[in-house]
């Protein structure tokens, strides 16, 4: 058994350096050279100012913006230094209450809103940082944003379509709109 201790210690130490130092540093070196923007968090820069990461959602809740999905991070929503989901079970009364309140908030902010609410805008995401809402989830908010900003609703529907992303290779993922990019576009075109 002691004869095996030497290879155990030495191989562990050297393989640790290979897999725990050389390998991640090699990946870092290549990534920083070939994909510098993506390796550093895909920051969205507008007029020289960093407005956030295009991969990480931000908490939009003003009626003149398209709202992001509810977020379970705490205490602030969309806390990107502490991702978490709600982990509320499907039959937990807390889920029904929370969704009920979110539906009510959307209808209160837009009394003309009569249709059923797309599920993604009243449920929390897995990461608490979801950058997207569904296209339906954006369209259902158009009337509210249009009224606040004094823009024809049709123009905003076109804006939503312009910012929509379809499925990759036609079968991977789901149709969606990046909320940060949509709202930045909104600020630029219809301030």
């Amino acid at each position, binding site marked *: 058994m002691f004869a095996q201790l*030497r*290879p155990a210690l030495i*191989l*562990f130490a*050297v*393989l640790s350096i290979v*897999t*725990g130092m050389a390998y*991640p540093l090699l*990946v*870092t070196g290549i*990534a920083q050279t*070939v*994909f510098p923007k*993506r*390796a550093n*968090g895909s920051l969205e820069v507008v007029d020289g100012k960093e*407005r*956030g990461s295009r*991969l*990480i*959602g*931000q*908490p939009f809740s003003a009626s003149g913006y398209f709202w992001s*999905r509810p977020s379970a991070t705490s*205490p*602030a929503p969309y806390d990107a*230094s*502490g*991702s*978490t*989901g*709600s982990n*509320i*079970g*499907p*039959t*937990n009364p807390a889920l*029904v209450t929370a*969704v*009920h309140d979110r*539906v009510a908030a959307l209808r209160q902010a837009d009394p003309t809103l009569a249709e*059923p*609410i797309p*599920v*993604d805008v*009243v*449920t929390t*995401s*897995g*990461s608490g940082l*979801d950058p997207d*809402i*569904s296209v339906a*989830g954006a369209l259902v908010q158009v009337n509210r944003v249009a009224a606040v900003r004094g823009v024809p609703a049709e123009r905003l529907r076109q804006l939503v379509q312009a910012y929509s992303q379809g499925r*990759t290779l036609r*079968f991977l*993922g789901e*149709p969606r709109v990046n909320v940060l990019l949509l709202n*930045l576009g909104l600020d630029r075109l219809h301030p």
Partner: protein
Amino acid sequence: MTALAVVQLVVFLGAIVALAKPLGIYMARVYEGRPSGLGRVLGPVERFLYRIAGVNPGDEMGWKGYAVAMLLFNAVGMFALYALQRVQGGLPANPAHFPAVAPDLAFNTAISFVTNTNWQNYSGEQSMSYLTQMLGLTVQNFLSAASGMAVLVALIRGIARRTTSTIGNFWVDTVRGTLYILLPLSLIVALALVSQGVVQTLAPYKKVALVQPVVVDQPKLDPSGAPVKDAQGNPVTEKVTVTEQTLAVGPAASQVAIKHLGTNGGGFFNTNSAHPFENPTPLSNFIEIVAIFLIPGALCLTFGEMVRDRRQGWAILAAMSAIFMVAAVVAISNEQGGNPLLTKLGVDQRFSATQAGGNMEGKEVRFGPAASGLFAAITTSTSCGAVNSMHDSFTPLGGLVPMVMMQLGEVVFGGVGSGLYGMLAFVIVAVFIAGLMVGRTPEYLGKKIGAFEMKMASLVILIPPAAVLLGTAVAVATTAGQAGASNPGAHGFSQILYAFSSASNNNGSAFAGINGNTQFYNFTLALAMFFGRFWSKVPILAIAGSLAAKKLTPVGAGTLATHTPLFVVLLIGTILLVAALTFFPALALGPIVEHLQMLAAAH
């Protein structure tokens, strides 16, 4: 299940089958020491390693020597990972200045990563320094995987060889698996993930100003940092305007790649592959799920190659795929079906051109219920345990699927190495049952299966379920255990059952609402992980040694063919029967009763 979801499943399985053969044959060459193509680059590194470690690669070990080497190597890894977490506060590459990890949590995490489980009672971006993530956790992602593959290869040698006392050299198998298989694949996958937006940097966390500041209720703290409470003992909150967002980054891609390829599953960030920096696009998601099945699938073909009968490998791959497909279909359909309790509130969960619909609580819009349900089936068929959605918020039957897949013993693809050696234990039981039926001595690939092999195979199959049920029983019977459940009723029980199913079978995914970072769970789950892993690895090596010593029995008229559809069905039946007899009562108390409650409440 939508047509698009069917396409996803079919393309995924097609990719796995297409990649399994070339990779499987490559791995067989690596483990047999034949030229593999990478020898010119990696050969000098490999020989240098043997020289300084004093290993003669030609020296073969008996099964006991192999087991001792494996256990020693894992023990060294466990101590090193524990120590690194405990001293990380004073070491470099810690830009967020995280202090030492608490002893019970560090103990749990060390066992968790060395056993290839990667159960996480910590939040990566809030407790682990970059150095710990790289030099501690990433290392064990590689070495626990390589060590699982080594044990499998030893078992295959035991089956393939005859009348010999040795089953290979553990050091050589571990070094070759790491250098020739895991490292090159990880490098490719890591860079592919960075191209999609997975972060890879040593820079500190990044602060950005929010486009729209938000006002939040924050717990008020007194000058010492303790929460202030009012007269009733409730925490006092104050309104705070949040104007900036801190983006946690780090060397994630290098770790995420091996976390999938090695079926480890431990996320760089707390929410694992649901986190946009860990799994940013539908394409990165596809790369990640292929990476999970890649090696466990290909190892079936490695097995066929090494026993010189590829049909045996294909038969096992077919059995695995059949069970997996059923799991994927059930998970996806239930998640796409949505939660009837929300429909009543005026929520639209229907699939349409502008939304994926379904049960979206705990899911990301870019994946939707189809890619989330598929990921859940994949990550629990294998012992990976990475998640791209929160299983805790799945519908009752959608959440039943990951639980059952773990309870099958992680043999449907399973962990790298451990999945196939667990499956071969079931094969031994299946040929034994078949032998009893026709009254012949059971044999597999020319080796007679005796009482010793049956005893060892039974241990491999029965120890994890025993750990699941005993652990769950202790937890639900004690205050400390009950305190972990964060959801009321049947779902709270499911959270505990899921935790022990995950730990004992070395999966690592969770119904993550469970509050596992307590002394009770840190300790009990660590024990479950330890027994689940090593109390099956050692009996597997015992089988390997025993089979290697046997002589070959020639194929006769009464020999049961083990590459036929009939045998595949027998094998599937054996696996399902053992799991059903073991777990049905527990499942009835958790997800099944919750499903019935949900249907009743929806009316």
